[in-house]
């Protein structure tokens, strides 16, 4: 093997390995199911705290729509966005348990 070929093969091998491990690979229906379930669970928790956001519901709906269209990359991305929104609403509800008094007229 020539001295030029050896590093080239190494670069190709590394690139292939990185590509395999990278999140850039196409998402599957199973990936979507996992991501969507996590988002739904977080939103349910926000519901128990009586503090769901309309944007979480809308993002969950768009995730479902993308999955129905077979676009699992978009579906997973939207599910993750929905989960982040739901977690933010949970944080807000917990933080406001005491912080509401800061605004009170006294």
């Amino acid at each position, binding site marked *: 093997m020539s001295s030029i070929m050896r590093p080239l093969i190494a670069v190709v091998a590394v690139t292939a390995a990185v590509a395999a491990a990278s999140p850039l690979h196409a998402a599957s229906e199973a990936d979507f199911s996992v991501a969507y379930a996590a988002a739904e669970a977080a939103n349910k928790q926000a519901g128990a705290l009586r503090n769901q*956001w309309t944007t979480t519901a809308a993002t969950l709906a768009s995730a479902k729509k993308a999955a129905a269209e077979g676009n699992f990359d978009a579906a997973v991305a939207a599910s993750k966005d929905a989960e982040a929104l739901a977690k933010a609403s949970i944080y*807000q509800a917990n933080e406001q348990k005491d912080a*509401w008094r800061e605004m009170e007229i006294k």
Partner: protein
Amino acid sequence: MGGRRRGDIGVRSAIRFALGIVALAALLGSASAAETPNPAADAAAFKKFFTDKFPKVKLEDFVNGPYSMDEGLHRQWQEKEQFPPYEFAVETGKEMFSKPFKNGKSYADCFPNQGIGVRQDYPYFDTKGGKVITLELALNQCREANGEPPFSYVKDEMAALTAYMAFTSRGKPFDIKIPDDPRALEAYESGKRYFYTRRGQLNFSCATCHVQSPGERIRAEVLAPALGILNAMPIYRSEWSGMGTTSRRFTTCNSQIRAVPLDPQDDEYRDLEYYLSYVSNGLPIAGPGARP
């Protein structure tokens, strides 16, 4: 000598310990006093806040919401009152109110004073059921008790009925009572907590708009002060192209800040109405009203 010194140190430590306990007790005492609900003090502070913020607005004028905020808006309100857009709702409500149910009874049988001139007493705390009863809820309870299906809480029939009942109560000061019942005080506190709690993706509380920013514009809308905000309910809103109840106002406020609204007449909304009405005690009923 050494024994005496040891004794002094012992006494000093005991005194320090006792002083520490006294200080701690005083601290805990003041903390719990600060958190003890005091609705009367809340209502006084609430009124003072708004009258200080808007010294030119008469106390009773706060019930006109955004129209009380400056002279130009006040003129708009006066012009609107010449041909009030809620007039049809009052007429419809009057007709509905006097029409008997299938069993021959009517709304008048469900309310004190036949339902005339009683708006200022709602919501009240029902000590039997342990919950706040709003006028909207009382109307639907009346219907169901007489074998009639309940109305939607947000508009149409419910808005017409409450418009008529408010109209017969105009000028009467809000007279919301908190009975000597810990559950009533808890309902009041729960309403207060809801009012000041930030929610929704916009991270707004009711107070963000109606305490911190009354008189300011949010897009084209002039925000109403929280003081007297329920006295003019139900309202005709140009934005809705129709009438809306207190339930409609609460749920749409939540949607606007990107919070999923609760169901109309859920406990939180009933408690919120209880709190907001109580702190406006003494201000006249001005409903039905008209808003931009």
